């Protein structure tokens, strides 16, 4: 690069006159910092909003509950506290403390003799597992597909977007129900089915972002400098679409939890696991509503509501960051 006739301003650096690479700035450190600052900035903007803060606190609370469930729950979620007359569905439950102060069970028991509080606590595990895994994969797959389609364009874009269009033709809940019915009722299948359907919206939005980003001069400048496609996607496109990925991830939490509750409610839930959805389902099966056993189905309903609303609020807060016009 250095010309022989007219030494360039970098000439002495090329002569090897300087000792082994005196790099005062480490490149990994810098890449790391780029990401840390991007995420940090998003975080600060996000937590600016009181509602979002409350939503975060709620989610954190449920996360803590889920993690420490074995310590917090007084009983096993599927441990019968007493035996009812076998085979017969009867209304044989223990009232919660606020009805019967003698009761040993804070939220009472179900008619099968399960402790409701313990079920609720363990149920948060299923909800958050579904919510977080679905969110991570929805945002992850959607972002990757969207960036690839948007950046490369042409046939790759066409193919990927036809797949997305195809998925858009399927309604979320019915399709998840059918998939789970086919694959077998387990929590993992539910998560899988939700992810398969949900990445579509993220992919579509990220693609349109990538389409406009790739025309921006700073991407062109990187191309002129010889950057590989992967370099451009990971360094130039990804950091700039990150807020949108987060936004769709946050919404995905809410949708996934709702979908899981719905699937469980109609009886396709994981039989070996308690979730809020399966609690609702069994309360319906035992006609809790008819017997006025509201403490069986109201608490899981509230929990679902709280987590779902938190997800939407965080998503909403993110929307305001990514789309300043909403402010």
């Amino acid at each position, binding site marked *: 690069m250095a010309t022989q006739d*007219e030494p360039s301003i970098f000439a002495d650096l090329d002569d090897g006159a300087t000792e082994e690479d*005196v790099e005062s700035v480490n490149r990994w450190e810098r890449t790391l910092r780029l990401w840390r600052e991007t995420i940090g900035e998003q975080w600060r903007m996000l937590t600016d909003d009181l509602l979002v803060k409350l939503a975060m606190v709620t989610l954190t609370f449920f996360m803590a509950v889920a993690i420490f469930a074995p310590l917090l729950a007084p009983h096993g979620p599927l441990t019968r506290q007493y035996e009812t007359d076998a085979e017969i569905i009867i209304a044989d439950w223990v009232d919660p403390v606020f009805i019967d102060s003698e009761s040993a069970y804070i939220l009472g028991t179900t008619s099968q003799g399960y402790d409701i509080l313990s079920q609720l606590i363990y149920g948060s595990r299923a909800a958050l597992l579904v919510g977080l895994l679905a969110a991570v994969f929805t945002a992850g797959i959607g972002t990757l597909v969207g960036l690839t389609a948007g950046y490369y364009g042409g046939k790759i874009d066409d193919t990927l977007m036809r797949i997305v269009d195809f998925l858009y033709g399927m309604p979320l809940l019915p399709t998840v129900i059918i998939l789970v019915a086919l694959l077998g009722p387990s929590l993992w299948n539910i998560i899988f089915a939700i992810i398969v359907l949900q990445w579509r919206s993220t992919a579509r939005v990220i693609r349109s972002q990538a389409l406009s980003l790739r025309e*921006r001069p700073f991407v062109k400048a990187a191309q*002129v*400098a010889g950057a590989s496609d992967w370099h451009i996607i990971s360094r130039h496109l990804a950091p700039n679409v990150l807020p949108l990925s987060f936004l769709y991830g946050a919404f995905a939490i809410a949708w996934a939890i709702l979908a899981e509750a719905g699937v469980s409610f109609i009886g396709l839930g994981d039989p070996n696991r308690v979730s809020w959805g399966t609690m609702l389902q069994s309360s319906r099966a035992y006609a809790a509503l008819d017997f006025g056993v509201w403490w069986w189905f109201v608490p899981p309903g509230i929990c679902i509501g709280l987590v779902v609303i938190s997800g939407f609020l965080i998503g909403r807060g993110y929307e305001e960051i990514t789309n300043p016009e909403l402010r």
Partner: protein
Amino acid sequence: MSLNTPMDDETLLEVRNLEKHFQVDEGIISSLLRSVTGAEADYVHAVDGVSFDLKRGETLGLAGESGCGKTTTGMSLVKLHEPTDGSIRFRGRDLTEADDDELAQFRQNAQMIFQDPFESLNPRMTVYDTIAEPLRIHDVRNETARVRRALEFAELQPPDQYFNQYPHELSGGQRQRVAIARALVLDPDFIVADEPVSMLDVSLRAGVLSLMERMTEEFDLSVVYISHDLSLLRHMCDRLAIMYMGKIVEKGPTEDVIENPQHPYTRSLINAVPVPDPGIGRERVELGGEVGDAIDVPSGCRFHGRCSEYIGDICETEEPPLEGKADFEGRQEVACHLYEPADDVVEARVGETTDTGDDSAASADD
């Protein structure tokens, strides 16, 4: 031979008949219809046969109204576009045939400076990362020292103070200096500068322009300046090429073209510029009539719809070649039927036996 090896007085870049056509976006329905009826897709003829040479250390200006294809030409020169047809040779090597190694060498040697410094820097990257990026891509050693040197050259002093700043913390002029530092950090031989100061505050332009002059000098750079601003190009360029609808209509030494314009289009462009003053930029040149349709290009001379010198049918039927002319003093080449081809052009023609020879013989008779 390596693309990195400089030679004295070499022709760095040879562009021959460069064409870039973009297919017009169409929906699925119309593309289906087209495949059934067998009709041809519409193409925008952004660049339609551009040729020029660029010597080492030489600066060439590409001028014209917006939409004349000058930016597309510039982008093709640094391989942001694959040309539809024609060739670009860098140090004698045809870039369309270059292998990966040669392409990487070309990428090190050819850089671009963009119009809008607010858009050409990634808002999420610090100044240091932005300038160091080309070095990392090409695995060049002494990253920090080089970045520092490049910043110093771009008059961003002291350089270390800028390392951790983000583009939004800088002024427009500083950003364009960062963009220039990024273009220079690989020590290139060739730079395309697309309207480098048009987005800057008038008060900052002179500073950035003098930096670019210094860079051309110091790095012995060949630069293609793209601008609608003739007074800027006059100030910065050794040679000038005026483009109209994807073609060069007049090309030659800057002084000849500006002082003694021959092509009717060039004249109208220059007449629209009242006083040449290199320090001050100007709004886009206005000209009567509409620019022709870039999809369904006009026959013959593309300027015939707006030309004040229109001399009859030949303007609409014969495409005037860009060639040396006999009727005036200047050294420029002009694509217009008003002038007789220079003697050497005619001689060269007579030697040819191809059909183009016949065409030009006919036009020479007019």
